């Protein structure tokens, strides 16, 4: 998908926090009307602006005012982002979980994203950007639950965004949507097809989420949509990559040693902050401080790889999965066999992103949490 420059200028009158203004028939319009039960005539006479914002040529939307809504704020990454953002912005957090140790100026709504209450959050205040981190990755959850979380809830979020004309959306997807394949080029660009679900059905909704964000990008040119696709995020987060690296004796597939990229969680947080600047839109791959073979990575963290032949690893992992002794489905073994690395040149040139944490620092953080756990 090309990264078009900003062509449309948002009407200054279309402020958030008041009655939704629908200026333009969109492909989503009938759905939104049906769901939310109100019909607005288009074109609607524009309301006068109370505080006219100075509009510069480069940034048509000086969206400096208003809060940043962070979904899934109670995850490790969400908390990190909230703590960084609340120094400069108003932060509104949304999560099913409680956010007890939050800084005082962060407003937290403990709601399910699928509930109607979400709409009140949008209606109640001026939201200038939405950062969507509330993605359910847990492979243990059922397909239906994952679908309703990742797709239905996200669709509703997008509906509210178009209704209340939020000018910025940042979605955290991942390099996994490209999928590890034997015929992958060494570095995947943003134009590469999303084949992540080809061999692993569990990835289907994550690919679909990425696609939804992409279609939103095209359907709503008023909203600056940014999709970030970072490689394996590690650090103190609890995701598959970090959990794997924390193992004392992680399983490697015998005869395979693919090159791997990891990125520190704080670098991802910084990339999200960069993406929140006005004028930024498009898809960006995010890469860490360099790639190295998986075996080197494991040794640097202090683990000792356990080499297991592919068929045995598959059978064993399937059994362990059935017995709920392992959190890794056997289809994820492809990540230990084939490359799935990204090219971040676009993020470097257009986003100004540069990984700040060295590989030693990244792996040190992974290691530290392992020692704390043990």
């Amino acid at each position, binding site marked *: 998908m090309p990264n078009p420059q900003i062509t449309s200028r948002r009407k200054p009158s279309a402020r958030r926090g008041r009655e939704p203004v629908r200026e333009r028939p969109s492909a989503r319009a009938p759905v939104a009307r049906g769901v939310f039960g109100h019909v607005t005539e288009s074109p609607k006479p524009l309301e006068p602006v109370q505080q006219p914002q100075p509009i510069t040529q480069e940034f048509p939307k000086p969206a400096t005012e208003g809060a940043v809504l962070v979904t899934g704020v109670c995850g490790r990454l969400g908390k990190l982002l909230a703590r960084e953002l609340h120094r400069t912005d108003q932060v509104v957090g949304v999560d099913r979980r409680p956010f007890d140790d939050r800084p005082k100026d962060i407003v937290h709504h403990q709601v399910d994203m699928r509930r109607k209450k979400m709409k009140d959050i949008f209606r109640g205040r001026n939201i200038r950007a939405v950062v969507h981190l509330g993605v359910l990755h847990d492979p243990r959850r059922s397909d239906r639950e994952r679908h309703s979380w990742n797709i239905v809830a996200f669709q509703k979020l997008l509906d509210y965004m178009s209704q209340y004309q939020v000018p910025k959306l940042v979605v955290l997807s991942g390099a996994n949507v490209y999928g590890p394949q*034997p*015929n*992958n*080029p*060494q*570095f995947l*660009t943003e134009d590469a097809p999303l084949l992540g679900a080809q061999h692993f059905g569990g990835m289907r909704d994550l690919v679909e989420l990425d696609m939804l964000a992409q279609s939103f990008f095209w359907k709503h040119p008023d909203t600056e949509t940014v999709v970030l696709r970072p490689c394996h995020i590690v650090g103190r987060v609890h995701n598959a990559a970090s959990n794997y690296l*924390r*193992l*004392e*004796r*992680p*399983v490697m*597939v*015998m*005869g*395979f*040693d693919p*090159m791997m990229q990891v990125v520190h969680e704080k670098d991802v947080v910084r990339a999200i902050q960069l993406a929140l600047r006005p004028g930024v839109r498009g898809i960006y791959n995010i890469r860490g*401080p*360099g*790639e*190295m*073979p998986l075996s*080197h990575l494991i040794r640097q963290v202090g683990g*000792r790889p356990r080499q297991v*032949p*592919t068929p045995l690893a598959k059978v064993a992992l399937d059994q*362990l999965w059935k017995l709920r002794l*392992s959190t890794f489905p056997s289809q994820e073994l492809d990540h230990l*066999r*084939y490359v799935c690395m990204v090219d971040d040149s676009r993020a470097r040139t257009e986003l100004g992103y540069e990984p700040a944490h*060295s*590989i030693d620092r990244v792996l040190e953080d992974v290691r530290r949490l392992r020692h704390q756990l*043990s």
Partner: protein
Amino acid sequence: MAQGGSIVPFAGWRRTRLLGESPLRQALRSVGDRVVRLAEDVVGQDLDARIAGIKTHLNEVGHDPFGFDPETSRYALAMAALLHRRYFRTQVFGINRVPQGRVLIVANHSGQLPLDAVMIGSAMMLDADPPRFPRSMVETWTAELPFISTLYPRLGQVVGSPENARRLLQQEESLIVFPEGARGISKTFDQRYQLTDFGLGFVRLALETGTPIVPVAVIGGEEQYPSIADFKPLARLLNMPAFPVMPQLFFGMIAPLPTKYRLYFGEPFRFSGDPDDDDSAIEEKVWLVKSTIQSMVNRGLRERKGVFI
């Protein structure tokens, strides 16, 4: 899967035993070092200095992004040097014609096993000055094979895709290309030294990246494993490009016949034009490269006294 240690019996014992390098790895390393020393004695060149002399593009953490590993490559170079100098007694002509910077080395493909690529690679490493480290593009399905998929990237081989080739050329690396592909390598003995159809991709790639093309004629590869037939049904069954029937295997000769290799490097072509041009326009340039290689092959065949001398 993380074992705490206290519950698991003998966990501590395993830890102490496995802390250092495994005995197998140690043994492999000592054998490898011996091979490298032997090769250095035979070749009379410092192989480690040769490897240290090549230009690689390391990333921020000191690894080659495509997985090239000098540690593994020195063993491979030692083996290749022994084959190059002793077994095949390769003669190299005109290696000085290979320009510095990005270059596509286009050669005829032959001999059932890609030893011709090994010979071109070792010629570039041992005979060129300064040493050049050529990458070659390997079939995609090798990435699915255990051990091979680890070994090839460590030796600098890259899975064949246009994106990878473009990236390598933009890094000013040299690439070995066999436009005949599997058609060329699995020729039967009656078709020896007759070039089959060339693909068009390499010329498009050269036009796109402004890369000079060096034609190379390889003499001696066709006789290393003479094949009398291609057993197509079995090849299809095994999902292989061809299944050559090689009589020498019936006599227990697994190694290739010790033919004498001759490598002729030609003057580089520098094409200009639109990479997205019509096939007919590209085919003209491809034909020029192909006919040059064919005439170099024919000249080499006329000049040689025998297959083994």
